[in-house]
């Protein structure tokens, strides 16, 4: 078909205009119907008020002020001390240093207020998302029809770009702190549902039977047997929720959430990269701290204190009270320990700016050749190819691939995903997006695999690399857009470079995990057969780890789709750019349709990869 292009009728080159369906108009009409006829806004605004009130209370607790309960703020010293104690309680000295240190950093660098606004958002959104996710997960486990209908929704929800959530939220919930919280909740709930469902399904049937034969009523069985037995997965779910919440910190500020994210965008706007990096570090620290705390909580060995004396049994509680009292007293004497205004905070901003300057001054010219080469010989040809390919051929190709790899349902799904994109009228834009992620993902695979293999060769290196992955994953990607532009200017290469930086994380992470989890007996068997390290890698480890690595590559595709939308801030001509435009003009329907286009691109790849991976795992006997 590709070869026959010159002879194909136009209708097979681009979706003919008569076939295009006005999805966006339908969605807008539907949204109008919800707003005007159903008066759903009364209901949603009431929810918004409730959320705002809760936020006010939390905010009041962290920052003081007249709203909420009208209490004075807790001194930063107290928060840091208590966080340190909590860290110690959950995970010993290291965690104590991490959590106490994070809060101290936030205070000393004069970011207390911003950080507390952000934390208030997390503290409200995360529990709400956990609760909603838990309940929906439980319901889905009970009711087969719910599970069946929720699964595809979750798939779509988890591949919709963050920005798609914003407009509906603005329209139904307004703007402000609460809107940010609600968008965050909507975004963070799907993984919780998934993990709850997974956890409940994984419980040994015997445990449930043990509950029943112990005489549990259905409610006792749920809360005393099933939920606690699924707690590992539920905890992982909670952890993911927290990470999602922090991923939304910057994006939530587009619809009115104050805090670190908002400040970050402002700083970037006036090119204060050093200060922006400082904020980025804060976000990373908060993310890693919350991540480690919840994980420590999840894997914590419960201790038994029933027989100990009151003092010993409640030593942490008493310690907390004592710490709080002492730190409040100190803060009362010395205001520095109560609150440090931003102007009095430390700053490393001046350190970063020369580094950025140095990079632009010294690397720009050497990179010039590279930039020209890549643009002329790789990007432009690939882009032209994607634009040139008849849409019918592309659809046929992918549907066929789906058929070969995953059978009929898979083919059908892929056909409808691509069909939607074609009928929505965004085919050309989607192909630009597709071209950018193709290039980015290819680079990610090559670099990510290489890095992953290198890092997996020693346990300590692997650990450090994984920490780096965590850091980059939570570091707000907006920040590195700026240096990337300074080096590559506003063009596709910049966008692709930014996407690559972010999307490489899962490729590296899953490669390391896959390679490090090859069963030891197999490694020994191959080593004793006389294989050297390279042979072992090629003959045993890579083939065995491949399914897991493919999961990583699948994630890489998802990450790159998220990032490609954010890269629209550099300046692109793809779906992301249109999405920004829809956001600016409050065009809910268009925004959602574009979001679906992005999601369906991702889901097409997801279908192919996950079917292949499942098949391969079964063949290797690695399936659960």
């Amino acid at each position, binding site marked *: 078909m590709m070869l026959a292009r010159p002879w194909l009728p136009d209708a097979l080159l681009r979706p003919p205009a008569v076939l295009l369906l006005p999805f966006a108009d339908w969605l807008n009409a539907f949204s109008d119907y919800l707003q005007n006829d159903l008066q759903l806004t009364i209901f949603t605004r009431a929810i918004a008020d409730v959320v705002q009130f809760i936020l006010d209370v939390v905010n009041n607790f962290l920052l003081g002020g007249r709203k909420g309960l009208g209490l004075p703020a807790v001194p930063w010293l107290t928060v840091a001390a208590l966080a340190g104690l909590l860290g110690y309680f959950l995970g010993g000295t290291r965690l104590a240093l991490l959590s106490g240190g994070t809060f101290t950093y936030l205070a000393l660098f004069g970011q207390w207020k911003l950080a507390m606004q952000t934390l208030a958002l997390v503290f409200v959104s995360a529990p709400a998302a956990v609760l909603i996710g838990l309940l929906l997960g439980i319901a889905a486990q009970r009711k087969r029809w719910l599970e069946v209908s929720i699964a595809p929704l979750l798939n779509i929800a988890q591949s919709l770009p963050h920005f798609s959530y914003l407009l509906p939220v603005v329209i139904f919930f307004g703007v402000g702190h609460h809107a940010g919280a609600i968008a965050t909740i909507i975004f963070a709930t799907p993984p919780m549902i998934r993990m709850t469902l997974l956890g409940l399904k994984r419980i*040994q049937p*015997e*445990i449930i*039977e*043990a509950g*029943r*034969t*112990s*005489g*549990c*009523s*259905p409610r*006792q069985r749920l809360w*005393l*047997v099933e939920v*606690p*037995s699924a*707690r590992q997965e539920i905890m992982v779910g909670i952890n993911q929720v927290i990470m999602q919440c922090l991923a939304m910190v910057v994006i939530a500020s587009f619809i009115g959430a104050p805090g670190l994210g908002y400040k970050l965008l402002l700083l970037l706007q006036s090119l204060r990269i050093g200060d922006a990096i400082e904020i980025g570090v804060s976000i990373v620290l908060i993310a890693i701290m919350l991540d480690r705390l919840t994980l420590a909580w999840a894997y914590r*060995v*419960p201790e*038994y204190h*029933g*027989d100990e004396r009151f003092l010993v049994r409640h030593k942490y509680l008493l310690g907390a009270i004592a710490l709080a009292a002492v730190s409040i007293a100190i803060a009362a004497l010395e205001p520095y320990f109560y609150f440090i205004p931003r102007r009095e905070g430390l700053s490393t901003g001046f350190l970063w700016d020369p580094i950025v300057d140095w990079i632009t001054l010294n690397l720009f010219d050497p990179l010039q050749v590279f930039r020209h080469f890549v643009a002329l010989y790789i990007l432009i040809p690939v882009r032209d190819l994607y634009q040139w390919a008849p849409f019918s051929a592309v659809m046929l190709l992918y549907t066929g691939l789906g058929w070969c790899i995953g059978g009929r349902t898979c083919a059908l799904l892929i056909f409808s995903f691509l069909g939607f994109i074609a009928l929505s009228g965004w085919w050309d834009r989607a192909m630009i997006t597709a071209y950018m992620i193709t290039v980015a993902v290819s680079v990610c695979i090559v670099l990510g695999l290489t890095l992953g293999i290198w890092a997996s060769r020693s346990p300590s290196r692997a650990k450090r690399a994984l920490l780096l992955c965590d850091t980059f994953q939570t570091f707000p990607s907006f920040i590195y857009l700026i240096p990337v532009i300074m080096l590559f200017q506003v063009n596709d290469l910049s966008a692709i470079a930014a996407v690559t930086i972010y999307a490489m994380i899962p490729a590296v992470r899953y490669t390391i995990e896959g390679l490090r989890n090859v069963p030891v007996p197999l490694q020994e068997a191959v080593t004793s057969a006389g294989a050297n390290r390279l042979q072992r890698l090629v003959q045993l480890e890579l083939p065995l780890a491949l399914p897991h690595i493919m999961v990583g590559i699948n994630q890489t595709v998802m990450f790159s789709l998220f990032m490609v939308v954010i890269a629209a801030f550099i300046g692109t001509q793809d779906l992301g750019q249109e999405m920004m435009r829809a956001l600016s003009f409050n065009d809910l329907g268009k925004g959602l349709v574009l979001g679906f286009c992005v999601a369906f691109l991702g889901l097409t790849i997801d279908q192919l990869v996950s079917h292949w991976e499942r098949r391969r795992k079964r063949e290797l006997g690695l399936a659960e």
Partner: protein
Amino acid sequence: MDGKTSGVIRCESLWKIYGPDPGGIFRKHDGAPSDEALKESGHIAAVNNISLEISRGEMLVVMGLSGSGKSTLVRCLSRLVESTAGRVEMDGQDLFALDEKELIELWRHKMGMVFQHFALLPHKTVLENVAFPLQMQGITPDVRRAKALEMIELVGLSGRENYFPRELSGGQQQRVGIARSLAVDPGIWFLDEPFSALDPLIRREMQDEFLRLQEMLKKSIVFITHDFDEALRLADRIAILYHGKVEQIGTPEEIVMNPATDYVARFTSEVPRARVLTVGSFVVAGEGDGVEPVAKDTPIASILRRIVLSPDARIPVVEDNGRHLGVIDRNALLDALFG
């Protein structure tokens, strides 16, 4: 055993069919679907028309290969799964007629169950696990703690009440499982391969322990195993299951000596007969020649030496109360063992 009410559990024509439409296929064949009909329509009869009865204080061991339907059978008997058809009576009460509430009551007071993989709650301590069924009944913490400690003592785990399951060995975990199932002092005790996950030495130890407990508690027991050795050590009666059907049910000796089907014969062919057969099966009339008498339910294995070493001795056999029965029929016995 006198007719209808003596059994603690009775089941009649019990069916459990798995597959796309169990009820349909069952009705379509008027309550007696043939194996072929089931297979053709993609169904499996995990329990295939089973009737049996367990009397008070009796231990019925259910045996069979993996997939023969043992677990399904106990789960039908305890109504952990809903049977396709048939009837189960427990102390004369129709089990399938109970509503959810009554069923929970029944579980709370009458039944205890031990599981192959222990099924302990990972987030609770030994003490809390054992006290769990009591907690479900809403018994106050003090009382349930006392009762649970008693059970823990009974299974010999005193001193470990505050351990978490993962801190215990497999044998210890199963002791917890046993203590938990006994905490409510059930009349009926179901054990689904309780020792299969343990290594042979521990298994042996646990069997001894179990016999000791049963000696004291005298529960009515349905015990599942796929280990014939274990069955022989424990059983009052053995039921052998094959593809969901009871091939034979009887005392260990009956099963070994008179296998009802080829399958049972093959199944028991490897069993050392000397361990199963008792002296009582080989008695002929006659007077002993003054050597020390043996009791009638002595396993042959323990006197084999005497029989082989003194070919001409006429060994007298007596009943438990000392009454003389006759002498050992040496030839019949050797034929049974080696013929």
